[in-house]
């Protein structure tokens, strides 16, 4: 394979889906904060109106119920693409426990290496897997919070309506936690941000190596 047509780190479909997801996630999180405020889960925790999408709960719900389609359909496309193209397996697997410990240790010593953007370290892999699973979980728990009577068996299995509501809230916390780390690191190593816009370095074709 010649250098010219070698696959980029982030092929165009991945970039389009990444930024679509970024917008959809922010819409879902901020409109979710607008919905949350009417009946809080953590006593004393409120989200300031500048962080809420929608001037009160009803428009926040309209945003949430519009954004859910973008989030779910784009997420589904991403997972199908990732499985069919082999990208998810290539990028995120395998994760070795030793490598994980090693990366955590290096990170704690502030040795964050991003010399080769095309290789994800063990912590990166784990975080991406967690956030993908959290996204799937949000779609499922969101559907159950929306339709607790139609899906009453699944709701009962998860411990009832309020339990599912808390699960949906925890999913949000996981995603927001990821987002903070993800955005902070991409600003710290801006070439990763640039790669998600331009496609990044071309991958060395594996067939070339003897």
């Amino acid at each position, binding site marked *: 394979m010649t250098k010219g047509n070698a696959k980029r780190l982030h092929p165009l479909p991945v970039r389009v889906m990444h930024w679509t997801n970024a917008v959809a996630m922010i819409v879902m999180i901020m409109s979710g904060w607008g919905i949350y405020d009417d009946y809080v889960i953590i006593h004393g925790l409120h989200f300031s109106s500048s962080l809420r999408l929608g001037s009160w709960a*009803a*428009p926040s719900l309209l*945003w949430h119920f519009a954004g859910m389609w973008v989030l779910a359909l784009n997420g589904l496309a991403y997972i199908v693409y990732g499985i069919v193209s082999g990208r998810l397996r290539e990028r995120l697997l395998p994760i070795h426990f030793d490598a994980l410990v090693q990366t955590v240790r290096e990170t704690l010593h502030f040795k964050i290496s991003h010399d080769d953007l095309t290789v994800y370290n063990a912590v990166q892999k784990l975080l991406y897997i967690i956030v993908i699973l959290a996204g799937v979980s949000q779609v499922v728990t969101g559907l159950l919070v929306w*339709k*607790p*009577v139609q899906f009453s068996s699944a709701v009962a299995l998860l411990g009832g309506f309020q339990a599912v509501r808390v699960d949906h809230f925890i999913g949000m916390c996981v995603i927001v936690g990821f987002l903070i780390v993800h955005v902070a690191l991409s600003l710290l190593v*801006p070439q990763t*941000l640039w790669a998600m816009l331009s496609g990044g370095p071309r991958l060395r074709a594996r067939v070339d190596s003897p």
Partner: protein
Amino acid sequence: MKSPFRPKTPPDSAILDNHAGQIRLLERRGLIRGGLSLGALAMLTGCDVTSDISVDKGLRLMSAWNDRVQAALFDPNHLAPTYPASMILKPPKFNAYYDITKVKPVDVTDWKLELSGLIANKTPWTLERLMSLPSSEMVIKHICVEGWDYIGGWSGPTLRSFLERVGADLHAKYVAFKTADDYPSSIDMATALHPQTLLATQYAGQTLADPFGFPVRLRMSTKLGYKNPKWITAIEVTNQYPGGYWENLGEGWFAGI
């Protein structure tokens, strides 16, 4: 703590001096780049987006589409979970667009249930007549759009039996309600015919108390709380979209759960 970005051994100070200008330039470029992405994020906060009329229109179109999806998800034969009578909250939770002290009790001496629209027999109903219909009972969860819930026990004739009795067109699209507290609402016919949709006249085996809708209110196991009007004074069967109090202010219309 030593900065993680500083090399272990400092370079010769002369090198730093020679490149001072370029280093400053690099930092400034980084700042601009960072600022650009922060700016992009700030644009997503939506403060200006939400007030935009076309955005509002788009959101309402999406909501209308979601109403259709919800109607498709609605299973007319699926019953909501029911609970033992011992779990009934007494009294029920009060919630309205005004405070409980503002409730104006309905005087039954001149109360009548008016009927209009696609109904064969539009003779108004007295409370005695309504009470003479066979009564159903259900102990179900009330779920509010705000997120809270409680278990309530309701009884009264099913809306289906009432609509059949008065000869309503059961193929019409909507059943609309008018109330003594100016809280119009409307539901789809499929939900109106669901076995857990009652014209409730009793709570926990007792006549409905004034704040909770005496003499008659709607109670459905398959819709959010705000879809259940209290102090009903009129019922209309229609094919024209009737809207409702919160619905007209931007809440979703179908509101199925």
